């Protein structure tokens, strides 16, 4: 294709949008509505995943050592645990640390209660590793690995929390895949319908081009450019709307439901948009391209 033809096709694509205002607005609105719902759901799913992931990270396995184990072996155990699959972090908790955290947790402000113990740490020999998981579904493997290590006396774990979290995580993944798939199918159906309507109106124009001797590419190019531009605008509008609505929604939820403040931790909008922006734009452009490319194909057989 000549450069002048590329320029002409691009100009025609934009002119088509302006000429067929109603059709263009209908297409952009359909696309924007679909991508808005998609983006909304996408942001919710991402936050759910984030909250579950945060909760998972809080789940720790506690690894206790045999009495009088040498410090070098303790360090080795730490290294071996760190290399395990699914482990996020391994933290050494000395007997004194354990006692201090026990005191603050159970005696609170009333330090007199603890005074009876004075320098006699009741939790001597309780130094341990707190192993934080990145993926709780791998907890069982890490536990049996830790139990098999020399110098390990006991391993404590929380099965219920880990099982609940990993099944919640699985559920969210399946549900989100299903809903996103349905939304995509609906969007493609709606948009290809709108594009079909637009092209049917211009069937005569396409036929004239073909009678004159236009190649398929020449006929198709302005329509595809039109589809891509409509897709792009149809994606930008909901993405901008969602961007501003996101922050408002998060602060509304947190002020309205104060209690949730400690439980819920929402992703910042920039984190959500690192994924949502390229995915949303690609979706708009992709659907616009595919919709116009394939819809016009059947009209080219003149």
């Amino acid at each position, binding site marked *: *294709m000549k450069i*002048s033809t590329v320029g002409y096709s691009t100009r025609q694509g934009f002119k088509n949008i302006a000429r067929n205002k109603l059709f263009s607005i209908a297409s952009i609105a359909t696309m924007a509505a679909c991508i808005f719902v998609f983006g909304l759901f996408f942001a919710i799913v991402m936050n759910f995943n984030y909250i579950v992931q945060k909760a998972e990270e809080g789940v720790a396995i506690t690894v206790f050592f045999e009495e009088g184990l040498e410090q070098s072996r303790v360090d080795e155990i730490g290294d071996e645990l760190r290399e395990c699959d699914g482990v996020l972090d391994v933290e050494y908790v000395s007997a004194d640390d354990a006692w201090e955290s026990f005191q603050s947790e159970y005696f609170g402000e009333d330090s007199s209660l603890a005074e009876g113990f004075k320098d006699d740490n009741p939790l001597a020999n309780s130094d341990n590793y707190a192993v934080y998981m990145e993926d709780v579904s791998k907890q069982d493997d890490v536990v049996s690995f830790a139990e098999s290590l020399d110098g390990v006396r006991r391993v404590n774990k929380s099965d219920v929390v880990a099982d609940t979290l990993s099944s919640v995580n699985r559920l969210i993944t399946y549900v989100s895949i299903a809903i996103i798939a349905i939304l995509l199918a609906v969007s493609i159906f709606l948009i290809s319908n709108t594009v079909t309507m637009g092209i049917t109106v211009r069937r005569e124009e396409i036929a*004239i081009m*073909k*009678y*004159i*001797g*236009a*190649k398929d590419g020449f006929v198709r190019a302005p329509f595809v450019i039109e589809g891509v531009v409509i897709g792009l605008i149809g994606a930008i509008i909901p993405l901008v709307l969602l961007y501003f609505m996101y922050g408002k929604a998060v602060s509304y939820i947190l002020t309205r439901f104060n209690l949730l403040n400690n439980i819920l931790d929402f992703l910042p909008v920039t984190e959500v948009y690192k994924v949502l922006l390229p995915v949303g734009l690609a979706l708009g452009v992709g659907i616009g391209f595919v919709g116009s490319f394939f819809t016009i194909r059947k009209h080219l057989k*003149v």
Partner: protein
Amino acid sequence: MIELNEVTKEYSKGVAALNGVTLKIEQGEFVFIVGDSGSGKSTLIRLIMKELEPTSGTIVVNGQNLERLKHKQIPMYRRGLGVVFQDFRLLKDRNIYENIAFAQRVVETSPRIIKKKVPAALSLVGLAQKYKSYPKELSGGEQQRVAIARAIVNEPAILLADEPTGNLDPTNSWEIMKLLEEANERGTTVLVVTHNQEIVNEMRKRVVTMKKGVIVSDEQKGGYNNED
């Protein structure tokens, strides 16, 4: 130039729009194809344009056997043809200049040449002053003149006109026929499908008469007796 050999076209099984038509048109000829509605005239034009495929028989145009033409080669083939329709088929949302320039852009003519050729084509059909007008601002005769300018701007070897005067009054009809004759005088082969008795009888060109899908007469300097 145009050769049809035993061409049959059936739209549905057993109903033939064309039935074993054999016809030869030489370069530079001016030929009228006449006949009643449903005689197969328009089917003939559509077959030559390769808009339709014959059920049997062969069509050779400009030395090309249309049967062997692949889908990709059709645009190049059609660039050798100029087509004029009864309903003008102009792009309503573009002005006259753009309508004619459009035919040139389709065949990827450079913008520099387009700027020269479009005004020349408009002058040929006497509409140089109206290049900014839109089709709806023109009379039927003027619109058909624009369609002819569009058909001849790429200098095709063959001009096909399907009922070009069907929607026009006698004065405009004569103007259109004059333009087609001028194109023929410049060397273009012209094929006109019509049932305008007055024009056919007055112009004394070659007349091919069709009835129910077959050619019933083919006369040099012929006439036409429309029984409708």
